[in-house]
């Protein structure tokens, strides 16, 4: 059994991808680890007027001005609190750097293509357009977020639309 597993792991290793798993409320989400630049605490965020509520503002990341998005607010989660444990994942999306606020970061997982199932058509708050699939891992289910699509989408209001 273990031999078999090892063999299949080796066979698919080339195609397996690593994901950073983070939690939002009770759910577990994951993004491609290659998109992640760093993980830091939530501090010193300057509010931006007239921006959507989930855009917390901008912060100084070693001389670079980076917008901070709170995915908890975006996904309408309750109990949005900011404390010493609040984590910001700094991701690289295209040419841009964006910080996303999450409840916590748990681990880094390797998923083989077999473990990634297509995402069902659902989602009022999180359209399935922004999902790259669902990762099943024994008894856990990870929502794989296509962070590129999500953050550059119009509804995130992070990027100027052409006519804006």
């Amino acid at each position, binding site marked *: 059994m273990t031999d078999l597993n090892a063999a299949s792991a080796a066979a698919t290793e080339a195609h397996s991808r690593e994901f950073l798993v983070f939690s939002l409320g009770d759910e577990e989400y994951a993004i491609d680890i290659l998109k992640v630049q760093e993980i830091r605490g939530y501090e*010193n965020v*300057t*509010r*931006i*007027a*007239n*921006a959507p509520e989930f855009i917390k*503002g*901008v*912060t*100084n990341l070693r*001389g*670079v*001005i*980076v*917008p901070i998005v709170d995915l908890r607010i975006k996904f309408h989660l309750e109990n949005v609190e900011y404390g010493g444990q609040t984590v910001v994942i700094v991701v690289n999306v295209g040419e*841009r*750097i*964006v910080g996303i606020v999450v409840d916590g970061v748990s681990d880094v997982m390797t998923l083989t293509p077999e473990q990634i199932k297509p995402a069902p058509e659902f989602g009022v708050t999180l359209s399935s357009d922004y999902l790259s699939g669902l990762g099943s891992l024994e008894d856990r289910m990870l929502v794989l977020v296509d962070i590129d699509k999500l953050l550059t989408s119009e509804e995130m*209001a*992070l*990027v*100027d639309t052409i006519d*804006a």
Partner: protein
Amino acid sequence: MDISEFYETFFEEAEELLGDMERHLLELDVDEPDPEQLNAIFRAAHSIKGGAGTFGFDVLQHTTHLLENLLDYTRHGELVLRRDIVDTFLEAKDMLHDQLDAYRQGGEPDPEAFERICQTLKQLALDEMGKKVGDDAPGAASAAKAEPEPTPPSQEGSPGVSGGEDSAEGRLSIALLGIADKDRELLVEELANFGEIIERRGDSSRYEVLLETSTSVDDIEMVMCFIVEPEQLEIVAAGGPAADVSDAAARSDAAQSDVGASGKAAEKTPQQGEATAKAQENKPQEKQSPEKSPEPPAKVESSKPANKAQDNKAKAKPKAASSGESSIRVPVNKVDQIINLVGELIITQSMLDQTVSEMDATQGGALVNGMSLLQRNARDLQEAVMSIRMVPMDYVFSRFPRLVRDLAAKLDKNVELVTEGESTELDKSLTERIIDPLTHLVRNSLDHGIESPDKREAAGKSRTGRLTLSAQHQGGNILIEVKDDGAGLNREKLLAKAEANGVPTAENMSDDDVWQLIFAPGFSTADQVSDVSGRGVGMDVVKRNIQAMGGHVEIQSRQGQGTTTRIVLPLTLAILDGMSIKVGNEMFILPLSTVLESLQPRKEDIYAMAGDDVVMKVRDEYLPVVAVHQALDVAEAETEPTSCIAVIVQGEGRRYALLVDDLIGQQQVVVKNLETNYRKVSGVSAATILGDGSVALILDVTDLHRLSRTKREALSARRQTTPAKEVEV
């Protein structure tokens, strides 16, 4: 050492030379050409030819060669200049530029264009010179020159082709110092292009070539300078055919006693090896050689007193310096990187400063002193670094003489271009971005502004129109004006056009407002659409471009007397003098250049108007009030106007009173683009990083006013549907 390393140097130098050539050609008085200028043009062409030959850019070499021949006739008075000849020269110059660009991109120039320009130049030579020869047909010399066929590269520079008044048929002893064998071969080959090599010998530290040529020392130096440093090259006239290299060497020894006595010559240019001493001894001779005397050099040198030699040396020095040490070429991104780093340094420094200022002063006296020293040094460093980016406006203005000349000819108008304040400095990135808007304004002035000579005469003006480009510093801004003495804007025409184009107008609009109409999209007043201007997409693009640079543009015009367009731009986009203000618990930065004054509003000066607009009376002027806390939704801010501080600001020619809680102070801030990682935020132009590492937004006064208006409108709309809701100012 690979010769391709020098390509870039050649391209840049050639570009500069072409620029010089164009400038001289434009300044040239056709009826009475200045021989100095003709020489300068000729030399530029010649140097490019030499460089092109060295690097194997055959097409470029060929074209310059044809041009050079013509220029040579011109400077000897054998070809009489006319305006159309200058035009042809300019055309050839443009072609050279195209060819240069093609080579630069690693390609080959367009063969058809090359063929065409060759034909044009040959035809010109044939037409003009043929006539000339027929007229006063004296000798074989002119006959040879009338021959328009290009001389193959190996023969170019042979007697009769590029001979100038300052070149006597003779021998030159050329010494190459410290050149590697591989490169030396190339250089010798290059020298062979100038004439016949009679003798060559030496090693890599000093290699002498005896060359029989008619090319002047200046020209050879100029060509060789593409490849070697000036101090690596010595050229000495070796006298008549009888003289040879050893003679020259002997003479230089003789001359050395004079120079040595003066005791200074040998202190220059440190070099190693035995050759060094000899090289330096020869220096005075080299400097003298451009003087060119027909007498044998030996006689000249020995008869010349040593101090004369030193004089020459002193004279020659600035030239050497300008080609070698006084400037370096650095890619812009390297400079930008330094500027960014210095920006970071400044931020770190102010963070430290803040920490130190919170410390007990009695404990860290030395630290506090050190900090103030650091602060001063950091500021100096920042200023010095910023000045690297500054370039004179000449960089921009220099491209207009040509444009004006060509356009005026095309439009059959007489226009005189005057430029003022060329030495005013502006950030390089801004100069690049101002060129397009300025070009547009100049085209407009020529096309729509300045009238045809007949119309001008009828209006009692001189037939020649006058277009003035000026630049001057005004506080932290630069003011650029495009002024013409043409017909001016026509109020009725503008209004009619605006109505026809659906641009909103009003009967009683002030003149200034009417002039602003031409910045509306899709507006053009030209009766006929020409290819010069009049597509009607121009002026709004001009305005938008200038606004994107953080500047603004305004128009003043008087019918029949002309139009002045004024562009006000910040000197640099990277650093800003700011006033930090506090609203609620948030800090914002106002550009100091927009701040006029600040005052405590009195209740009787504040008037509420319909539609929730509030104005404030400041010295008999009613200014719209912008409550910053309202526009930017700041919580816990002071809402009562009389307990706020009113900052009077100016933006796009209008004034506003901003209500803020507190003024913190003035500081220089490094401007950081918000749009790099985020998007445009209304009311905000950019962001900066404060001393404590937090981000503060830099406010855009005009945009803020717009924002506050829309908010108030939304608010009053909401109130109309749900009345009885209390609304704060």
